[in-house]
């Protein structure tokens, strides 16, 4: 009798069987919806005789792109045009992230300042920037650049070497010199050395308790190495100053108004969120931690380095990476002000070839790669930084 008891339960009351039925049902419904959409799409594509597939990537693009990090012309392929767009997205995101981190940290610390004026100003900045859509901010900065700044002939030059006009910002940069290549090389070497030095110093301190001034030595290395190279090459000081040739500036480094407006809008908007993240992170470390660290006689720099930052960063880093990702995603708004980022170039490709599905799929794929790699990094970091409780 006992063995037969389970058989009495009808299958719709057995949770395990019911679970399987539910899953099959959901799977079928989702599958049917997908099948319906895909079959409609195939029929529609045939009817409108739109080409499909990624073959268009090898065809000639026959459109120009305003700014590019790699050689590109209208004779290049669509694939190369998209690559230009992707590189432009990376460029604006990378510079944007660096500017945002610096600005956001400063504002976040200012928000916690004991100085009433500074703290209130930071608060106003955060509130205003967070509450205005980023797209509107982009339009605003672009309008300021395009309408309010003079033409190149009457360009403003607040300090020598910096020129503001409605064609963008032009900087003076050091003239090309073979020394630069070696300076960059040795800068990277110094960075790598500092990293190993830091690891070594940590390990030594854990073993022997001896403290090594890692920070100061690293700074000395990172500045010193390129400086020495610069001196060896005879300290070249020649500058490449932008000059007005025809209607545009030649020489120096020029950023287009689209790029500057995009960068400014993204950086200001995101830095408000970063500031809140930084503030919350610093506040999350309890007062007692700082007091205890001071009580055992650590110097202020060590209190920050060994006690406050490691705990604050654990709170700060996860939301910070998601803000960085937001900035990258928001850089897709470049299309609204005409900066040729990936979305904008892909949109042009869609308009020319009519292959909208492939175009949108490429856009989504690129951003998915960004976000998946970011979340992979986050998982790695969370594992590394997880609180080891004793």
């Amino acid at each position, binding site marked *: 009798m006992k063995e037969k008891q389970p058989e009495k339960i009808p299958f719709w009351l057995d949770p395990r069987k019911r*679970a399987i039925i*539910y*899953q099959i049902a*959901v*799977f079928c419904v*989702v599958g049917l919806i997908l099948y319906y*959409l895909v079959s*409609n*799409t195939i*029929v*529609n*594509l045939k*009817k409108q005789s739109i080409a499909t597939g990624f073959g268009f990537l090898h065809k000639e693009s026959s459109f120009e792109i305003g700014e590019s990090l790699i050689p590109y012309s209208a004779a290049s392929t669509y694939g190369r045009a998209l690559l230009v767009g992707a590189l432009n997205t990376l460029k604006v995101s990378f510079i944007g992230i660096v500017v945002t981190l610096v600005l956001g940290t400063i504002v976040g610390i200012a928000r916690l*300042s*004991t*100085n*009433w*004026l*500074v703290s209130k*100003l930071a608060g106003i900045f955060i*509130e*205003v920037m*967070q*509450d*205005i*859509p*980023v*797209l*509107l*901010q982009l*339009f*605003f900065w672009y*309008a*300021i650049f395009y*309408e*309010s700044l003079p033409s190149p002939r009457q360009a403003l030059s607040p300090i020598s070497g910096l020129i503001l006009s409605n064609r963008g910002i032009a900087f003076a940069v050091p003239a090309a010199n073979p020394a630069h290549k070696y300076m960059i090389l040795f800068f990277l070497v110094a960075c790598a050395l500092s990293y190993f030095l830091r690891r070594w110093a940590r390990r030594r301190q854990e073993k022997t308790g001896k403290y090594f001034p890692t920070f100061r030595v690293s700074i000395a290395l990172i500045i010193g190495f390129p400086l020495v190279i610069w001196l060896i090459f005879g300290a070249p000081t020649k500058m490449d100053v932008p000059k007005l040739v025809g209607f545009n500036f030649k020489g120096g480094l020029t950023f287009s108004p689209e790029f500057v407006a995009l960068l400014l809008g993204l950086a200001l908007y995101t830095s408000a969120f970063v500031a809140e993240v930084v503030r919350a992170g610093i506040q999350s470390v309890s007062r007692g931690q700082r007091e205890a660290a001071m009580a055992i006689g650590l110097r202020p720099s060590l209190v920050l380095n060994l006690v406050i930052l490691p705990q604050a960063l654990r709170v700060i880093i996860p939301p910070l990476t998601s803000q960085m990702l937001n900035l990258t*995603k*928001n850089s*897709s*708004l470049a*299309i*609204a002000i005409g900066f040729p980022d990936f*979305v904008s170039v892909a*949109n042009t490709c*869609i308009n020319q070839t009519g292959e*909208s*599905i492939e175009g*949108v799929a490429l*856009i*989504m794929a690129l*951003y*998915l790669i*960004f*976000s*998946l790699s970011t*979340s992979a990094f986050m998982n790695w970091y969370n594992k590394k930084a997880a609180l080891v409780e004793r």
Partner: protein
Amino acid sequence: MTIAETVETQTQDIKPPVTHVGILGWMRGNLFNGALNSILTIVTMYLLWKVVPPLIRWAFIDSVWHTTGKACRHAAGACWSVVWDNVRFILFGFYPFDSQWRPLAAMLLLFGLLFYSQNRKHWKKHLIYVWILGLFVMGLLMKGGLFGLSSVESTKWSGLPLTLLLSIFGLTAAYPLGVILALGRRSKLPTMRWLSIVYIEMIRGVPLISLLFMSAIIFPLFLPEGITINKILRAQIAIILFTAAYIAEVVRGGLQAMSRGQYEAAESMGLNYFQTMRLIILPQALKIVIPPTVSILISAFKDTSLVVIIALWDLLKTTQSVLANPEWMGFSPEAYIFVALLYFAGCFSMSGYSRKLERELSAGEQQ
């Protein structure tokens, strides 16, 4: 004079030093506490003095308010005429000029409803009916065709009503979908879990603009021949699908915060999955996540501005079309500042409300 009197007069006479009370004391404590802070204060004051007076001069003293575009070009300050002369187009777009009281009334009704629902005492069942009725009346006001109101095509809905429509319906429709997705992600059934995870991560990984592109260009291909869906509705679907993924993550946070005991207690009472969720878990979890949900609402409200890229006539697009008029060309900063003020007013009141709610809810918890 007795001793007691002496003591009394003395205690009355001794006052804290003048540098520790009043304005001076406050300034000492908050602006000039330490050398670094004093320098910081002076530098900030100098910068403010450099920036603020010219800005006030530009915005108020030298500005013009009721002129034509031509007269504006001779003004030294801001040209607010670009806003005042076109305010009805900026706010209502192509809605028939004579009937623009209708979207205005609909918006006032919406603000009234929002104001009414912000009080937690009104969070009862009747509120739902009030909202359903309210939304119906708003729809009637916008669409017309009944009670002697002339019918207005939804393609003519533009400006601020469109922005509000996209955000309100975006959120109300996205909310249940987000809750379902969150439950799916926490489900023990692998199919549900994986479908939810793939959906949520995919949507959160791509920018809204790609979904809007999809709604504008690809969505028509999904439908069988002969069926077309209005452009506004397609954008609305994209916004709903996008917002739902973010709501799902917020709700998941609330579900994870529930203690195991709640699930176990519900199970031991013999409640099934749906009863457990509906009666025990969701009421508590959704209450915890009200503040982050409001911030999703804020970003959904801001994100509706993106529809300008697929050429829907929202608030930003009507403003831009005013600025494309040769008469008003070149006054973008003024017009954008006006639009920014509208968005700021909306977002600021919502975030202020969210903070207030957070305080109230956490106070309730402690009692």
